[in-house]
């Protein structure tokens, strides 16, 4: 028998053996035991590690689901699509299958809850600002991958919402001028959403995107650990270090933040379990009732809406009608005008002129001068139709663009301070309006189209865009408070 001392020596020797061949101890120190994170992390700093936990849940449950699921749109002997039947088989006949499937479907919604809160933390404390631009951009790429995962994965059960959701989203690409119609056929691999579409979406969902996602998560963490974490004060802790070069306001990630994150994980898992065991359908928001019917390509369900996490952007798509476009151009004109006034760079000013000239002649010019009668209105309509620049195209641009706007934040925010703690009333009010608009858009996206909902969504869409578009100006106007030299904590 080895004594404890001898055992420890053996362990040390084994570790030394590995360290000579692979930087295990170095990696552990750099990223865990000697990664100094600010000591004033609060509630909002739990969501990053939670997102990682949900990712692990999704990968593990996903692997087990693939063992029973069949991506096949053909009909079985009972006349039910094989893919749909295989999901029912998992739910009813595979031992434990019901829980694995519910964990995966609940995980999808939890992923978005956690990631939206994680992103909101960034807005609160300016986590995207220099030098964390790449942390933020990798994060945005992760967000896009998640949206892709959710979209591709949603087709797999081959229910009514799966099929019609995919039909609508793939048709969005058909709105792109010139190449659009061919592009949508290229994505589907058929002229309609069919078995070919199901199989390629399966490939994207289970291997292509997860591989990219894991790479991006790694890059996100490497970039974060290179520049160091931001904190609720927005103070750079690396600027004040002790003799050993350790930030005075930093504490090692392990054990301090690990313990805190474990607490967060426990709370997350409690909520997760309650959903999985007692309300796996989430009231029709996590699993939509229409998706318990197999896909019928001849009949759209009377009310279709995407899953809740896509609804804010879906609302913006619906809000972009031809009568809404002039308001959109007005906002663009305001932003371009302000850029012209505030920027001395000659190339940016020339670009502004170009945008204004194009927008003016293309969209208002003739109308403002009263050329609304034939043949001028026909000429304008003809130009727009010819270029494919109709409301449908702009709706698609709006939906994609409004997601991507987050990526510009590091360059839009001109505030002298990072954290909301030292920003003025103006930014706090604007951020509140932005969040309310996002929630309202999300609500209306779950509802059938209505005139009131449409107008409210249009107003919220404009405010959503203004939050980003006007940030370079209002963030400078805001009266900020002095930032302390060191972190504040109790």
């Amino acid at each position, binding site marked *: 028998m080895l004594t404890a001392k001898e055992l420890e020596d053996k362990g040390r020797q084994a570790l030394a053996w590995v360290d000579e061949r692979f930087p295990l101890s170095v990696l552990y120190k750099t990223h865990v035991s000697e990664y100094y994170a600010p000591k004033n992390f609060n509630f909002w700093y739990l969501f990053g590690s939670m997102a990682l936990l949900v990712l692990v849940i999704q990968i593990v449950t996903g692997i087990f689901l693939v063992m029973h699921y069949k991506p096949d749109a053909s009909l079985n002997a009972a006349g039910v699509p094989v893919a749909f039947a295989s999901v029912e088989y998992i739910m009813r006949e595979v031992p434990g299958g019901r829980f694995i499937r519910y964990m995966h479907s609940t995980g999808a919604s939890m992923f978005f809850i956690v990631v939206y809160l994680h992103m909101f933390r960034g807005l609160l404390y300016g986590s995207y600002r220099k030098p964390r631009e790449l942390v933020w951009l990798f994060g945005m790429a992760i967000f896009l991958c998640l949206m892709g995962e959710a979209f591709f994965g949603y087709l797999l059960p081959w229910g009514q919402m799966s099929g019609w959701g995919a039909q609508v989203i793939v048709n969005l690409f058909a709105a792109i001028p010139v190449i659009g119609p061919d592009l949508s056929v290229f994505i589907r*691999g058929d002229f309609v959403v069919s078995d070919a579409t199901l199989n390629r979406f399966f490939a994207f969902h289970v291997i292509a995107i997860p591989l990219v996602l894991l790479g991006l998560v790694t890059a996100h963490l490497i970039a974060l650990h290179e520049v160091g974490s931001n904190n609720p004060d927005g103070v750079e802790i690396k600027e004040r270090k002790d003799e050993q070069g350790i930030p005075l306001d930093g504490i090692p990630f392990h054990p301090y933040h690990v313990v805190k994150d474990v607490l967060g994980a426990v709370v997350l898992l409690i909520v997760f379990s309650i959903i999985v065991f007692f309300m796996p359908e989430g009231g029709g928001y996590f699993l939509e009732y229409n998706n318990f019917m197999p896909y019928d390509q001849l009949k*759209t*369900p009377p009310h279709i809406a995407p899953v809740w996490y896509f609804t804010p952007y879906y609302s913006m798509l619906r809000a972009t009608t031809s009568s809404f476009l002039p308001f959109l151009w007005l906002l663009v004109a305001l932003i371009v005008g302000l850029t012209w006034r505030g920027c001395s760079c000659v190339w940016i000013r020339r670009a502004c002129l170009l945008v204004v000239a194009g927008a003016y002649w293309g969209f208002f010019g003739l109308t403002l001068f009263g050329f609304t009668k034939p043949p001028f209105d026909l000429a304008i309509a003809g130009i727009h139709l010819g270029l494919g620049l109709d409301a449908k195209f702009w709706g698609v641009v709006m939906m994609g663009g409004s997601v991507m706007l987050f990526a510009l934040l590091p360059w839009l925010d001109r505030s002298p301070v990072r954290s909301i703690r030292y920003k003025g009333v103006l930014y706090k009010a604007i951020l509140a309006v932005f969040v309310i608009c996002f929630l309202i858009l999300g609500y209306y996206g779950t509802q059938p189209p209505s005139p009131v909902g449409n107008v409210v969504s249009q107003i919220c869409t404009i405010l959503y865009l203004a939050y980003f578009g006007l940030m370079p100006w209002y963030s400078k106007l805001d009266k900020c408070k002095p930032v302390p030299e060191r972190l504040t904590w109790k």
Partner: protein
Amino acid sequence: MSDHKQEALAGESFCACSADPSRRALLAATAGLGAAAGIGAAVPFVASFTPSDRARAAGAPVEVDLSGLRPGEKLVVEWQGKPVWILRRTPEMLAGLKTLDDKLVDPGSSAAEQPAYVSGEARSIAGKEEFFVCVGICTHLGCSPSDKFATGADSGMGEGWKGGFLCPCHGSMFDLAGRVFKSMPAPTNLVIPPHTYLSDTRLLIGQDSKGA
């Protein structure tokens, strides 16, 4: 980190003093050929994304028996994986179509995708105005609109509603000839497929009418 930078700098100066320009050409040629080979190798992968021969071959014409279809009723058949509607319109329905011109985006269907032998506000083959044949897929984002055949205030579609279709996804409204109303997300009227009447009660969808 600073060590890394110094190493990188040292490496750079090492390269600069011993660079052999004759090898650069070889390097460029290798990179160029490699890129060409990469593009060539990508061709089958990209091509595999396009519809297969089997998918292209699908879509034979579909024959429909109209004898059981009463006025005011709609039949749905599958053609090329899409729903095709055959609506037998009543005289009132047809009369309603004439009153809508100022509410429609394209009353004459000049921008609509429809065969040349289909004409008029009824968008049907001459002599067969009663029957309305169209692909039941919204021109916005491809949902299949729902029937809204009730008229007037009872329809829930407004006072002046003369019957038509409502797309459940984004709310586009169409009349009983599949013409889209103004200020709707759908840009154009519903698509009319090639079709021909084999006899009074037999309709063939997917094949053009001759001579008409």
